[in-house]
């Protein structure tokens, strides 16, 4: 451990921590746009600047290692003025259409504008006109809202190992696009969408649904593969309208395309809504009441057991259903029917 002073507070931090990490350990807030603790420090947004005693000018705290005895100031009028100017410059080339933006309420840039009370930008000038290429069913790009924090590029490369996107051009012309502006070669995991601090990246299927703060949130576990990712279901009016994942869980907030975007089946119009019975062999399945359906199940199962023995009945449990359901199902087969003929698709 090393000890340093941040804003006149004595702080202990592990060896190798950056100044930003040390400050966050001590619950000292330093604004950032381009930082994500799950990725390497980048130093692009310049909002995390701090003064360090002995250094002539502010440095980015996300890229500066904390050292023993260091004295750090995270806020003073000069630092705040510099940060405010940085945000103003970003907003000077931004649509500022928060009223109709899907990200409003959950947007780092909007929060910063609020924090620094920036109503109008002092910097008038040209704004970027980016061509949008959206030949995919998942990801919505509004590149005029991009602040070039690089989080999407880095998550795609560092975490996903795909490298589907990178930077092109310089300065005002800078752009996030597939390498050499070729066609997008993407797994659609949506990691980029999950780390975007502005409305530049969102999901097409979220459009027209309530924004994040207008929804109910339910912490649960993904229904697809055996990774067991923790997910948050965002629902509204009895419909699941978005899935996300918190970064403090065992999957660190990362999801795959199925987990993040494969939720529409839940509210599919094809869902079964009533029991069905085939009243005669070869006939059609017809709607029935629960009583009628369960009476028939119990009568038939009892009759088969009576006539052919319990082992003439078998049960297949479900590797997609809960532990409790599976437990009760095997108990039903073993106690209610009297057979060990119970299995599931572990082998498929």
């Amino acid at each position, binding site marked *: 451990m090393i000890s340093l002073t941040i804003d006149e507070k004595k702080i202990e931090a592990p060896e190798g921590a950056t100044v930003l990490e040390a400050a966050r350990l001590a619950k000292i807030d330093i604004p950032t746009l381009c930082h994500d603790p799950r990725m390497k420090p980048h130093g692009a947004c310049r909002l995390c600047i701090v003064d360090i005693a002995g250094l002539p000018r502010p440095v980015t705290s996300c890229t500066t290692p904390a050292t023993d005895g260091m004295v750090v100031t995270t806020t003073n009028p000069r630092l705040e003025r510099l940060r405010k100017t940085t945000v103003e410059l970003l907003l000077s080339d931004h649509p500022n259409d928060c009223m109709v933006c899907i990200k409003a309420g959950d947007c780092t840039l909007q929060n910063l504008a609020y924090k620094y009370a920036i109503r109008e930008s002092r910097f008038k000038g040209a704004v970027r006109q980016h061509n949008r290429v959206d030949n995919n*069913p998942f990801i919505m790009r509004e590149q005029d809202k991009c602040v070039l924090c690089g989080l999407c590029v880095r998550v795609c490369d560092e*975490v*996903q*190992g795909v490298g589907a996107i990178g930077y092109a051009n310089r300065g005002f012309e800078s752009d996030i696009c597939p390498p050499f502006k070729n066609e997008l070669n993407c797994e659609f995991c949506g990691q980029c969408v999950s780390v975007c601090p502005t409305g530049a990246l969102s999901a097409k*299927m979220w459009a027209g649904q309530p924004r994040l703060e207008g929804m*109910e949130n*339910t912490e*649960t*576990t993904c*229904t697809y*593969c*055996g*990774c*067991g990712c923790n997910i948050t279901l965002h*629902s509204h009016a009895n419909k*699941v309208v978005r899935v996300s994942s918190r970064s403090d869980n*065992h999957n660190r907030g990362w*999801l*795959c395309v199925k*987990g993040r*975007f*494969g*939720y*529409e*089946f839940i509210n*599919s119009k094809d*869902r*079964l*809504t009533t029991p*069905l*019975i*085939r009243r005669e062999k070869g006939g059609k*399945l017809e709607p029935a009441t629960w009583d009628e359906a369960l009476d028939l199940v*119990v009568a038939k*199962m009892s009759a088969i057991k009576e006539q052919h023995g319990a*082992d*003439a009945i*078998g049960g297949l*449990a*479900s*590797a*997609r*259903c*809960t*532990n409790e*359901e599976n*437990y009760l*199902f*095997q*108990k*039903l*087969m*073993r*106690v*209610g029917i*009297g057979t*060990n*003929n119970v*299995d*599931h698709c572990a082998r498929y």
Partner: protein
Amino acid sequence: MAGLAAKFGSGAMSNSVEGISRNEALFVIGSNTTENHPIIGLRMKEAVARGAQLIVADPRKIPLVKFATLWLRHKPGTDSVLLNAMMHVILAEGLEDKTFIAERTEGFAEFVESLKEFTPDFGEKITGVPAEDIRKAARIYASAGNAGIYYAMGITQHVMGTNNVHAVGNLAMLTGNLGKDAAGVNPLRGQNNVQGACDMGCLPDVFPGYQKVAIPEIRQKFESAWCAALSDVPGLPASEMTEAMLAGRMKGMYIFGENPAVSDPNTNHAVKGFESLEFLVVQDIFLTETAELADVVLPSASFAEKNGTFTCSERRVQRVRPAIASPGAARDDLAIIHEIFQRLTGGDAAATVQPAEVFNEVASLWAGIAGMDYARLDRDSLQWPCPTKDHPGTPYLFEKTFPRNETGKALFTKVPYVLSDELPDAEYPYVLTTGRELFHYHTGTMTRRSTGLAAVAPEAFVEVNPADAKDLGVKDKEMLTVTSRRGTIRVKARVSDIVPPKVVFIPFHYKEAGANRLTSDALDPICKIMEAKVCAVRIER
């Protein structure tokens, strides 16, 4: 699973996903991890970025190959020969962990004897992997301080699936890669709750917690807990139920949350079985192909509509919580099963049941989760074994002992060379292997109803190597007829070097071109898994 249980006393993933990033070497065999377990795949990529060596053994050029130090492209069905040849090298070069072998294993001498014929040259002859690469792989795996093995259905869905699992276990034992952090033998489970369904006793020979139905003391324990007399005859595994139906021994079935009419190997045969039943009940959220065959269909709740727990691949028990209400008259599975149970046993049909109560009942019958309850799980997930309320859960198994028997030692198993049941011949010259793709899940009942997924992966395909495409005069995207001894499908060609020559691959998600109409239902004699990964087909334009 039966394979590992016989060697170690537990068949689950020995280690944790989090530890993967701290592996010094990873050996991935028969797992297309980045497509089938994408988030576990991320940990593997992280390990590589941190400097770990990755060995991928797969006949297909799966996406993980891009990250591999070494790719072993062995012929489908030759996994155990490859593994045996690697172990031959480890012994020949003295790379084994002698202390671990002496202190924590048994059966070593016989095992060493059984490896004699599996020289790297023999390995090369059978698997098609150059002997030098087999040596390299053995050295990389055996010289790493912490090495983890990761596998999935790619090595288990074979007639010698149990052998393959034994071989994987032997490899970890030989190098002492068990009972420590960031190592182990790690079967990656394909569905959200396969681990849980096994844990809960949805297996024909065991009660919850892998307690054998055939052992009288265990049966008595469950008889007194459940207040009922219980059968001591192990039941039929799913893979043997079809034959029992067709032979008229099985007359009634109750299936919930599964779609075997698409997922069963040799589907045509399986469907005949279901059709021959006197009575079939299917409980599902959609009218699946299996539900269409039923006499009664019961509408149930999706995962977003219910309370309970799932247990993922790494033995982690986690809460499931409802976000919305089920549509129409659909009810959650627990309530349906409970009501049928009550009606069948003459109980009060109107009585309700709470998932937490059921969980507590399981915890009282299986020491593995005795320390868990909903209050704890609501704070954080827990990995079994978690025997007491103050136990923190177990990130990796076998630290001190193997719970196989009273010796506490792991058992080396001899793994003979066994051929796949159906090899290519003049009439059916290609090997068909099957699997999943990133954008779909199992029989597609959920993913194909999600617009984006259905748009990027709309239809089935058969991967054909460019050399074979040339022989057959086939162009990319051309419709082909693929035929096996059991069935025939029409499917679009995808000409690609992902597959080696003479091997084709079809994903099994698409009911209209169901790969499982072609696959074989030949069984592994020990664990009764079907050989879905290797069968012979012919291809016509």
